């Protein structure tokens, strides 16, 4: 079972073999997410951000290196319900209602849905989808689907939350709203969170530390601490210190 709520990667490397070539997705990646912290992973497309997340979830096995999720083997941690996950594409089951989709992890973990009934209703309220409990994903907008997938990630009250570009498909306005929402939701649960993103301001606004990645081979080049006090309000988006940090990250991102 879970020992703590940290995520730890040490010297992790992973190579993928496609039809024609081999891709070094990760090279010597080390990352440590302390319990209750929020870490943002930022980098260009295809730099291995999602692979780090998948490795931490036990969906991919690293070729070399050590991965501990919740202080233990990722597969043991996920099977115990200690982790929650939301992917970029909401990845909802098209034939399940909003409620049914949120309940999916409960079904996978073999727990009884009836024990979670009240909590699922709370989550639907939390993500602002009252009245859509019985809707199918095809009947929802992209933003609504994404909120369903966030609610699904929270249904097990996980100590560790892995978010793979959860707002990647949303517009800027909705995204800011969702960032503030996510902070609120997160500060209630204080789950150790790994957030994969390609939005600099999203990373700075939400994270305690931002890990900047580079491409080919995928690697972490620097980890920047974000000192702003919580709770952070939307005024932060317009402060000079906020922009300075953002510029610093942008420079590291682009400077090879």
């Amino acid at each position, binding site marked *: 079972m879970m020992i703590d709520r940290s995520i730890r990667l040490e010297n992790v490397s992973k190579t*993928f*073999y*496609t*039809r024609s070539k081999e891709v070094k997705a990760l090279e010597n990646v080390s990352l440590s997410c302390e319990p209750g912290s929020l870490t943002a992973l930022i980098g260009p497309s295809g730099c291995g951000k999602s692979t780090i997340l*998948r490795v931490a*979830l*036990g*969906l991919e096995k690293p070729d070399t290196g050590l991965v501990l999720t919740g202080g233990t083997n990722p*597969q043991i941690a*996920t*099977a*115990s*319900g200690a*982790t929650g*996950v939301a*992917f970029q*594409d909401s*990845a*909802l*089951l*098209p*034939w399940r209602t909003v409620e049914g989709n949120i309940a*999916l*992890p409960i*079904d*996978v*973990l073999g727990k009884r849905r009836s024990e979670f009934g009240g909590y699922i209703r709370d989550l639907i309220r939390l993500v602002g989808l009252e009245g859509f409990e019985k809707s*199918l*994903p*095809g009947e929802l907008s992209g933003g609504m*689907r994404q909120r369903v997938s966030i609610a*699904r990630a929270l249904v*097990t009250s996980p100590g560790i939350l*892995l978010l793979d570009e959860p707002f990647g498909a949303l517009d800027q306005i909705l995204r800011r709203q969702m960032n503030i929402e996510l902070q609120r939701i997160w500060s209630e649960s204080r789950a150790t969170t790994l957030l994969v993103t390609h939005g600099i301001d999203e990373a700075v606004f939400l994270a305690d530390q931002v890990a900047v990645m580079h491409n080919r081979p995928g690697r972490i080049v620097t980890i920047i601490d974000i000192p702003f006090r919580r709770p952070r309000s939307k005024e932060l988006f317009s402060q000079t210190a906020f922009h300075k940090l953002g510029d610093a990250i942008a420079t590291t991102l682009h400077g090879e």
Partner: protein
Amino acid sequence: MASEYQQNWLGRFTWLRNLLLLIALWEVVGRPKLVASGALPPPSAILVSLYLDRADYPPHIWATLQAAVLGFIIGNSAAILAGVLFVISPLALRLARGINIAIFSLPPIAIVPVLVLTLSGMTARVVLAALGCYFATMTATVLGLSQADQRSMDVVRAYGGNSWTIMRLVRLRSALPSILGGLRIAAPNAVLGAILAEFGGGGRWGLGTYLLGSLGRADPPRLWGIGLVATAIAGLAYAIFAMAGYHVTGASTAVTIPASVASTSSDEHTRTPLIRASLVMASVILPLLVWWLLLKAIDVPSLIAKTPLGVIDYLFLANSAPTAQLKLLQAFSQTLPITILGLFAGLAVAFLLAILSETFPAIARTMLPIALVTQTMPLVALTPLLVLLLGRGTAVTLWITISVTFFPSFATIAQGLILVPKAALELPRAYGATKVKELQLVAVPASLPYLFAALRLAVPRALLGVMIAEWLATGTGLGNLLNQSRGYLDYGMIWTVAAASVLLSILLYQLVVLAERKLFGRLGMKTSE
């Protein structure tokens, strides 16, 4: 507004109008017995004959239904269970490959004599009906299960779900439209299998038996009547599953297209050539073993029931071997070219019609009932009529071959076109693409796996069509050889032709699979096989 409403209302019934027009035309053409001296009786004469024979039908229909339904249940249960097993364990799929292909490739007509020789009447019918269902449903199940949305499966895996959890929560439900598509094809197959076995075997009741008894009476209206009743049964079975599929597809079409390139499974890399070779060997030996074991189990004299060794003995070792080889080779050289020609002609027609019906749904609504009729009318019974209409040449063989390959291909390809995600279709539309361009850019490539599945489905059916035509009309090739051997009680040759036609079918099937692998490997797509 009113006229628009009226137009819509009328539009929905165009197919009915077209169908009625067609029937009217048939009536006019058939009435004066102009076509082939009465081989095409007018619908009114068929109705009169149906009414006159009304007392005969119930027991025959009941007998056919019993065999078909029982075979349908047994065959499809086995098929779905096998499909689930194959997706969970690729090793099982590898091992069962030979058995699958052999079951699939058995041209029913070739094994009717064999089944009737070894099994009792009702059992032979149920077995043939079940065999007709198995492969269509099994491939549809595997296809549907293995093309489930990778992202949804990742979510389940991310919560520690194993392959059984994924099967239960994602794969089975998302495969439902595909499985129903398979059952839709299987339903008329079961009826056809039952009738074919009745035709070739003894027994008192059954539509096939009724047909056999009516063949000699030179009474085309009755033959058509029986054919239409059989068609109605098969059509009804088809419609039930088509409707179920329609209700299910709405909910489970993915909202976006999954972009993940299917990677080759990792154990494929780690297997040594030696292990791979022995797997292939095992999959080849397994069907022969089953053949041998089944014969041992039912205990039929070895004079009648030939084991694999018996066939080898007959074809290579016995005194009569050279004559047998010569006969077989000659039959092969007649059957093969026409089979390939008919195969591609049938597939081309199916593909064109599937695309046409995607563009103009009214065409599909008019053509489908007609296509269904050509499919479900027992060709064995139709062939004498077709001979009168088309003569005893290549035309009749081609016609029969196209009509047996066309329908399952059409259903499979149309299924592929329906499942193309909306978003993917809207992209070219957004760039002002024409319907043709849209099909060319998205629908056709996206349905390519289904096109190849259709081709694989069509291979043995093409052989079946050719052999039926040869048996009953042209008097050439493998079909004729089978029929002759039945007459001469040449059991060795009956088993040899059955085995040889299965082998030919397997060979053609393997060629398709090879082409599919080459193409899909280049395109980075996953084969359903």
